[in-house]
């Protein structure tokens, strides 16, 4: 029963959050590499009904803890339950998503377990020589990459940037074990209680989930230059993103920031306008399916990660693009022929 690779699934608003499936894809690869079993834990109020889905997405075993008091994430009960399970079964590897939950819960677990934790990994692998987990993440403001090992403490823990990997296809014929665990009532108690919750207006899909992202940087020169992006994004059916310099200039809110210090995204199309492509920024978008970049510096790094790079002033390109899109707005964009 002991050892193995574990991932911490997330239930949000009563459903298993898709980031769980991304974690399962990472965990599956590592477990196969080690010839070991992949376990997914899921805590929540409805999790029990969705355990099979977790198996279909790659788990060999699902440990379910289901209670009304676990409906929203709170550190105390989540940490108590997971510490108890981890101490019982001693997994070799423990992964979670770098969400507000994962980034809060994992450090608490690592502190209590006296083990190492690597934040925001973008790459995981197994060292063939010692079978240790290789945890790779951007370091020093995202200018370099560092690979980190947890030498002798266990489990080897890492959080993974959401959208750093595509989930495995759902396979309804996959078989797995579902274990339901129940704890004493006191385990579910928390020192922190929720007073109220205000949901963000649903008008715009969150940036992380957008299919098309139009992102602007310092090269747009002014707040007005940046503001052109909103109509462009609307015409393309996408969301507006911004580089760190653009946010620092106050042209866009922090919620729009793409990069290591902001959001990590994996849209179908990423359009970078006036962005040089500092490693901080690349860490948040380079796994986009298609990258199109406009920059007037032919040596800009963004052009090296682009499928199409245009060396031109983005401030000249945007109005032309907007005009062209307005012209055929009634036409077919985004209605199915966009999948090429």
């Amino acid at each position, binding site marked *: 029963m002991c050892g193995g690779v574990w991932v911490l699934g997330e239930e949000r*608003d009563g459903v298993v959050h898709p980031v769980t499936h991304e974690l399962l894809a990472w965990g599956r690869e590592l477990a196969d590499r080690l010839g070991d079993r992949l376990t997914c834990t899921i805590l929540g109020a409805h999790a029990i009904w969705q355990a099979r889905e977790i198996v279909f997405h790659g788990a060999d075993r699902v440990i379910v803890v289901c209670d009304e008091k676990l409906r929203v994430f709170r*550190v*105390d009960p989540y940490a108590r339950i997971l510490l108890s399970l981890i101490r019982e079964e001693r997994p070799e590897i423990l992964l979670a998503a770098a*969400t*507000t939950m994962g*980034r*809060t819960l994992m*450090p*608490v677990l*690592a*502190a209590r377990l*006296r*083990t*190492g*934790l690597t*934040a925001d990994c973008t790459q995981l692998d197994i060292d063939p020589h010692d079978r240790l987990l290789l945890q790779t993440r951007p*370091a*020093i*403001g995202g200018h*370099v*990459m560092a*690979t*980190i090992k*947890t*030498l002798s403490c266990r489990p080897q823990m890492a959080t993974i940037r959401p959208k750093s990997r595509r989930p495995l296809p759902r396979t309804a014929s996959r078989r797995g074990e579902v274990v339901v665990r129940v704890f004493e009532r006191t385990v579910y108690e928390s020192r*922190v*209680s*929720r007073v109220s*919750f*205000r*949901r963000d207006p649903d008008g715009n899909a969150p940036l992380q989930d957008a299919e*098309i992202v139009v992102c602007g940087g310092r090269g747009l020169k002014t707040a007005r230059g940046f503001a052109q992006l909103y109509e462009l994004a609307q015409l*393309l059916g996408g969301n507006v993103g911004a580089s760190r310099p653009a946010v620092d200039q106050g042209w866009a809110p922090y919620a729009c920031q793409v990069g*290591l*210090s902001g959001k990590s995204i994996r849209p179908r199309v990423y*359009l970078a306008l006036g962005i040089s492509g*500092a*490693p901080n920024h*690349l860490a948040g978008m*380079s796994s986009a399916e*298609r*990258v*199109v970049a406009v920059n007037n510096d*032919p040596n800009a*790094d963004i*052009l*090296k990660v*682009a*499928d*199409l*790079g*245009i*060396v031109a*002033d983005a401030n*000249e390109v945007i109005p*032309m*693009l907007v005009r062209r899109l307005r012209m055929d707005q009634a036409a077919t*964009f985004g209605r199915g*022929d966009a999948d*090429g």
Partner: protein
Amino acid sequence: MRICLLVKQVPATDKVVMDASTGTIVRTGIEMVINPLDLHAVEAAVRIKEADEAIGITVLSMGPASAVEAIREAMAMGCDDGALLSGSEFAGSDTWATAYALSQAVRHLDGCDLIVCGERAVDGETGQVGPMVAAMLNWPVLTYVSSISISGREIAVERVVESGRETVRCGLPALISVIREINEPRIPTLAGKMRARRAHVPTLSSEQIGAEPECLGLEGSPTRVVKVFYPRLTRSGVVVSAEATSLEGCVELLLQHLRGREPLGRGGD
């Protein structure tokens, strides 16, 4: 009541240069400042103090001797005193060992009811140390805090999470990590700067905070950096210059790519 602020000194620029022969960071000649996100934590603590003058604020940091400047920057904004964990025994600490040292220092301070820190440092970008310190002290931790109100021995905060904003409350002691939207950090006054410059900021050793040496520094760190490298830029697509082609031609090409009628660039991953 006493508030303890955790701050870190970081490079002022994100243009860090690596020594290709040794694989280490070139640190000479780099200006160091207090972590910009920590300024929001300082401001939050100072505002709590302004509402209740009986509250004292102690700034804690760990780093080389020069990191005392980060503590002075926080004191110039209105914090009362500070202490620096410094010495060879702390060098090379990862987030676990850093959190252990800081949690020991908090115990040593005695009488601290609230720890405030920034969401993360802009150099390491882990955001782990705050929650780890809370866990080691067995205090509640409230992360991603965008507003604070304190009444008596209870704290209520708003937290920004993926789907919205939740208001939670808990009793003190507690640790909170704040995000940048919580406030606009003040500019230190000249008087504040003078006071901070004159203040005595003691350096604490591992012995003084009662820390186990085997839990500190590189030796006490569960993790090791085994490799540092520049990211490989993998996608090699087409680059077209507006000077060579017309701007109109570029826009047409752009549209084709946005619409997905062009195959994806070869040589990707």
